[in-house]
């Protein structure tokens, strides 16, 4: 037998002979009764072409939509430039490992340093790690971090928190006895500061706010939140859609302690759930930095004074500290961080702003069209970025009608409520067509 991925398959006997051993010798320590008998119930090997045909078959079982779905909920359809795909397809990057040997890993180290630096500018925060799994896990780690810092067990979150991230937060923190307390929204969907003040006390470890929140609504008084938190020595955590920071104030300007977010919207495909890209950043404060999980790349010099990059502050990590580590994370989302870095570099100062504005305009166009032409209402009236909610009489009916035309509408929040995401990936004619179809059934 021969197989394209197994070079020594056909010379196994020769090699064993050279060693004076048999294959049985190599497994003599495995109890006979445990060994697999007979064939595994797996398909027979396929040639690459047959694999491709199988994938094609599967793809044909998926519905080919006419436009990207109008779905958000934390990740959104965007156009990923070819240059981004090209760079992360460079196999020196994608087949490499965590750069524990910096001398022959300068490429990925510098690229990750650049990711950290670019994200630092976007967030306006000094220290960004080189990735967590996704927004949800970044948030969970941030809360665990706050717990390590102040030992308190209550965490305040907004009622309009993204429920997907909230669930991850619960899964990770519940075992440590951390409880979540929710703050009501105002009528416009923003955080109700009175309710927040009421719930804030000395048992509170951290306050988490989202910008924008799950309904896409832009929080307009986060200065007050941070101020309140500071008085109670509560750790402030801000979750951001980094793309929204093209238009709205970054976490650094508010002086928050920790920022988390999702990098998917900056050059990463939807991937039916992942890989995504958990952003995590902290202020320039040793207490925060030393409690931050994840890998960080820093700049230094080599023996000859030449500039170079290396992993820093590794004493926080699991392989060195074991049970005392700041996190168990090892495999992260490095390649996605590079995708972010390439995409942000391509956008640049001007493109980043233009993209934010175009998304803002298109999503507002869609919302206004639905309100005007379909007479739909919104539960919360605040200004929003990219995502917005509308009330429908019958979500399912609309959804089915749209699907029939190859259009996937918004996310079902309830039988009468839909959350839509509109980005630069949705041409005007896609929006118009969606509204037209909706008109027919509403």
């Amino acid at each position, binding site marked *: 037998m021969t197989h394209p*991925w197994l070079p*020594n398959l056909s010379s196994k006997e020769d090699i064993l002979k050279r060693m004076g051993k048999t294959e049985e*010798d*190599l497994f003599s*320590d*495995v109890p006979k009764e445990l060994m697999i008998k007979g*064939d*595994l*119930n797996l*398909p027979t090997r396929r040639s690459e072409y047959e694999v491709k045909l199988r*994938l094609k078959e599967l793809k044909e079982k*998926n519905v080919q939509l006419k436009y990207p*779905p109008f779905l958000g*909920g934390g990740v959104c359809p965007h156009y990923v430039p070819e*240059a981004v795909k090209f760079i992360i397809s460079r196999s020196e990057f994608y087949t*490499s*490992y965590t750069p524990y*040997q910096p*001398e022959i890993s*300068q*490429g990925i180290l*510098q690229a*990750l340093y650049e990711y*950290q630096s670019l994200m*630092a500018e*976007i967030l306006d925060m000094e*220290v960004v790690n080189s990735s967590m*799994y996704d927004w*949800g*896990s970044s948030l969970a780690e941030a809360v*665990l971090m706050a717990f390590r810092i102040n030992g308190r067990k209550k965490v305040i979150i907004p009622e309009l928190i993204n429920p*997907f991230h909230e*669930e*991850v937060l*619960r899964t990770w923190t519940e075992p440590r006895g951390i409880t979540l307390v929710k703050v009501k929204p105002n009528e416009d969907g923003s955080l109700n500061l009175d309710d927040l003040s009421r719930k804030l006390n000395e048992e509170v470890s951290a306050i988490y706010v989202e910008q924008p929140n799950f309904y896409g609504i832009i929080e307009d008084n986060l200065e007050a939140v941070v101020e309140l938190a500071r008085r109670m020595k509560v750790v402030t955590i801000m979750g951001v859609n980094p793309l929204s920071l093209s*238009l709205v104030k970054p976490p650094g300007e508010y002086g928050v302690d920790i920022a988390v977010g999702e990098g998917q919207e900056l050059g990463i*495909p939807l991937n*039916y759930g*992942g890989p995504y890209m958990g952003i995590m950043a902290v202020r320039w404060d*040793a207490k925060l*930095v030393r409690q931050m999980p994840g890998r960080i790349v*820093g700049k*230094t010099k080599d023996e000859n004074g*030449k*500039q170079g990059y*290396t992993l820093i502050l590794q004493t926080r990590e699991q392989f060195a500290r074991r049970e005392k580590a700041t*996190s*168990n994370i090892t495999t*992260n989302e490095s*390649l*996605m961080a590079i995708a972010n870095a*390439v995409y942000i*570099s*391509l956008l640049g*100062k001007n493109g980043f702003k*233009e993209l934010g504005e175009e998304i803002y*305009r298109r999503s507002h*166009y869609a919302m206004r069209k639905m309100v005007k032409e379909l007479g739909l209402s919104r539960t919360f009236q605040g200004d929003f970025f990219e995502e917005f909610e509308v009330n429908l009489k019958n979500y399912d009916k609309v959804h089915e009608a749209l699907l029939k035309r190859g259009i*996937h509408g918004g996310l079902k929040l309830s039988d009468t409520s839909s959350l839509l995401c509109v980005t*630069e990936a949705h041409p005007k004619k896609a929006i118009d067509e969606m509204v037209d179809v909706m008109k027919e059934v509403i």
Partner: protein
Amino acid sequence: WDEPLIFEINRTKSRRQGILIPKEEIEEDVSIPDSVRRKEIDLPELTENEVVRHFVRLSQMNYGVDTGMMPLGSCTMKYNPKSEELAQDITGDYHPLQDVNTVQGTLEMIYETQEWLKEVTGMDECSLQVPAGSAGELAGVIMIRKYHLEKESHKDEMLVADTAHGTNPASASMVGYKVVYIKSNEEGLVDVDLLRSTASERTAGFMLTNPNTLGLFEENIGEISKVIHENGGLLYYDGANLNGILGIVRPGDMGFDIVHLNLHKTFGVPHGGGGPGAGALCAKGEMTRYLPYPIVEKAEGKFIMNKPERSIGKISSFNGNIGNVARAYVYIMGLGREGISEIARLSTLATNYLIDRLKDTKLELKSPNRPRKHEVVFSAKKIFDETGISALDIAKGLLDQGFYAPTIYFPPIVEEALMIEPTETESIETLDMFANALLKTIEDAYSNPDSLRRSPSNTAVGRLDQTKANHPSTVTPSYKVEKLRLLLKNDLILK
């Protein structure tokens, strides 16, 4: 060459942009009030050419499996077949919250992958929601906790082998368990007597890799399983080392209750410079009820997403790293039953061949007569004692010969450890070249230690100043900090 930082390429600061934003004629103003509006941002301004050239050059300063052998122990740096990239076709453009009726093909792929992983692990159910191995571990430990809570058994200790990966104690500790280490015996295996005396009603479980990080198969696994289960504990399998037994013996058959897999190790998904990977978390019997969701099931000819009855919830925000699950799907399909059954045989063969090639050196080996599985850990202590050349120096010497270095100083129970995992995808010729390079480095340790201590010299940079890198007054984690340092005339201390 030296490649400037991306911020420093457009030195004339002229207005450039690397991609055009599509624009529709829409009459909408951006009406964000000034109080929340972003004012400034310092991002590069570059053309596509400048960005591409920059990152192409960076890539050339990087070493991956496509450049050469990466014998990193416990990392399973195997070749990543190019056909895996085809899998993006059924994942890339799909939103995780899409109506399941629109993604039946993708769900079928996930379902099949679950089925196949159940078969190779001997477990009853698998969840692919965990985005990496350590996330799987975390989820596994949370499952253990939840299980015991529901059984109302008070258990606050997690047993961990002293050869375990650092993630094991870290995961246990994240969930609030007290970590109790089980020292290995002389042979490098779990000391079953010690285990027996340590295990108690406080024992929530035992986290184990088998083969362990020394590459040794825990042959007393039957007994270990008995001890743990008798104490009401659960046996947890760290799948990082599965490559050493894949197709030979299954965790499920060895008595493990929960297994996590690293699809980016054992199942050929590329490592991406540290990630993304993909994980799987599999469970047996009652424990399947606690698995993270969603799990794909088949109901009336349709694939649906299901949540196990007592599921611990979600460990990441959506469906897991499905883009990489699809790569593993291609990998398993391409190998098939015939290929999968050869993985452990061939990776074990490679390890033991290397041991054979290195047997007459000053490298030392615990239990030299036991066969290794996927990896082997040598001690360079003798060399260090005789020449002052450390495991680190040896690693750097290998870099100069065109190889990536083995894992060093791990596991901690071996002094001056060199942990080597060749995998089944390196040819006998490459194994020989690697052995020769290692032999030459050992020779150099005796004949030319000074030059070895200064290695590597053929690389983009030499050994880096770690003190400067980590010192509070010089630590530089971003360009923003560089700029601040300049502005504050270096008076920026991390405190």
